[in-house]
């Protein structure tokens, strides 16, 4: 039996409860409070860059250089893709889509039967859209994935627990669990190159300039002009992800 007075016990329990509640509130609200204390993203964005990507469907020839360059530059494991090319062949009866090995080695010729039915055909490069309202960031249980003020959606390789929730949440299928590192992985818009004043690898090697990358805050950049001309589309607009990958000449059949 305790020798403390009932009052002392009650005070102790009250303090314990209050302390636990405070700790709980702190744990829950730590991130937004710290973010607010550091200052809003909007101000740093205005002072700095606001990157976007543009894909011009009419220019892509499906050579696969971008897929190869990305794979080499970012040491992407075989069979996994930070970017890929899809080939669409549209016929009156339906649409034929394929992406052999992500289009890494180009495409074999379409067979004659399909070619004779085709009314339209084109290539669609795909990559992470670095969405301004990314569902992948929303669902990460430990906050390992985040959006930088300049618009890069990145994964903290030291913090990711590899739960794959972000892979499930991405409407565009651009994420995967890196087979060698066992963490979430995806296109980073070659952050390591852009931060050194270079362009992403895929943009650098594209022979037809189907891929473009730039700063929306730079009025002379191609991407800023594309944005302003307002002739662009995004993939799955109904998902409301505020995708920052703008497509020019995107056919209706593309998902």
């Amino acid at each position, binding site marked *: 039996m305790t020798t403390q007075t009932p009052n002392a016990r009650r005070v102790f329990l009250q303090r314990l409860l209050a302390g636990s509640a405070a700790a709980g509130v702190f744990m829950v609200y730590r991130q937004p409070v710290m973010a607010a204390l550091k200052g809003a993203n909007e101000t740093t964005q205005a002072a700095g860059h606001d990157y976007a990507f543009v894909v011009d469907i009419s220019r892509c020839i499906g050579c696969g250089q971008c897929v190869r360059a990305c794979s080499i530059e970012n040491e992407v494991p075989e069979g996994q893709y930070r970017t890929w090319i899809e080939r669409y062949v549209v016929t009156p009866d339906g649409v034929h*889509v394929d992406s052999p090995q992500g289009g890494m080695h180009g495409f074999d010729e379409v067979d004659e039967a399909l070619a004779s039915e085709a009314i339209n055909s084109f290539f669609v490069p795909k990559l992470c859209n670095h969405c301004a309202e990314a569902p992948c960031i*929303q669902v990460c249980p430990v906050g390992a994935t985040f959006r930088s003020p300049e618009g890069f959606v990145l994964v903290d390789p030291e913090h990711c627990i590899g739960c794959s929730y972000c892979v499930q949440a991405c409407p565009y299928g651009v994420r995967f669990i890196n087979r060698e590192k066992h963490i979430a992985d995806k296109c980073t818009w070659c952050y390591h190159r852009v931060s050194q004043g270079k362009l992403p690898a895929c943009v650098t090697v594209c022979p037809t300039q189907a891929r473009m990358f730039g700063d929306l805050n730079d009025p002379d950049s191609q991407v800023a002009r594309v944005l302003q001309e307002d002739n662009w589309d995004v993939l799955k607009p109904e998902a409301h992800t505020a995708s920052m990958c703008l497509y020019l000449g995107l056919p209706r059949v593309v998902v």
Partner: protein
Amino acid sequence: MLPNESLVNFFFPNEAEIHWSLMIVIYPYITGLVAGAFVVSSLYHVFQIRAFENIARFALVAAFSFGLFAAVPLLFHLGQPFRALNIFFTPHTTSAMSVFGYVYSSYMILLMIELWLVYREYFIQKAQETQGIPGRVWKILTLGVMDYTPESARVDHKLTTFLAAIGIPWACFLHGYVGFIFGSVKANAWWATPLQPIIFLMSAIVSGIAMLMLMYAFIRWRTRQAYDFPMIQKLMGFLWGFFIIDFFLEGLEIVYVAYEHGHHWSVIGPLLSGPLYDTFVIGQVLVLSVVPFLTLGYITIFKPWGKGLLYLANLASLLLVLQVLFMRFNVVVGGQLISKSDRGFTEFHFEFLAREGVVPAVIILSAPFVVFYIISRLIPVLGDAPDTE
């Protein structure tokens, strides 16, 4: 039949591999058993359903045994299991998954406190009777509280009732949030529905009740004890009621999606008539839902007794524990079969000895029963004395 006028089966290159496999199928299954068993215990402690008085303790011990292993499938699944504690240190609160660590651990604490309150009289008795190391273990279990007066028993009862009462919404949270994890993913047409948390919760309760029935029947059979037929009747009645709600909600979801005939149906229709036809239409619905539905209806309306009741109750319960397992499989894996390209399906392959293989899954699913068995030999679970045979 391929979705959206696709001429060939197409899926995005990264979709060749299914990321949430058997471990994520059995995780909600195990937490569902925990929630379901706890609800049965609470039906007595909170709602005073007299028929369940003799199985209330048994249900709590079962809930605890299942609960011990709830996190194990997740540890097997994580790409970085040694970083699992990040979920405690840096919970990202926009993610439903971030609450797992706190909800699960607080629920296990609640369960342990409830178990202690229910069993402390026995702990005190054993501590006073036994000597040596076992005696010390019993002493530790009493947490130093050695008196059991009518006054303290009254306090125990009030606390037990209170904990059982808050335990119900807490169990609902423990399992409902899993439904939210799936239901809130707009990228997955099969998962995304606001009904998902309640569907998961109702099927969890169904699985818990059915599993308790099977365990009860097995234990009574092995220990050659009498069956409590009034209790079985009442239990089957509740099982039927919860299953009606569960089956109705699962069906409603599909009827809605089909009637809406929108984007979701464009991929779900081909999914259910294609890759998921066997496990969903034939397995989950026709065999594992319709048959137990009719069986339980028969039990509840015509009130069979004795061996007849026993066989029918066991049949219905066995089919329903399988139904819920099939449901988890069909939701978790089925949803991932749909390509986000809307133009085809990917494939699921069972692995056996791999990290998310059948063998580890079976071992993890069996472990709670082993623990339950060990516990039942030490403390009285069904009846007044532990099973020492």
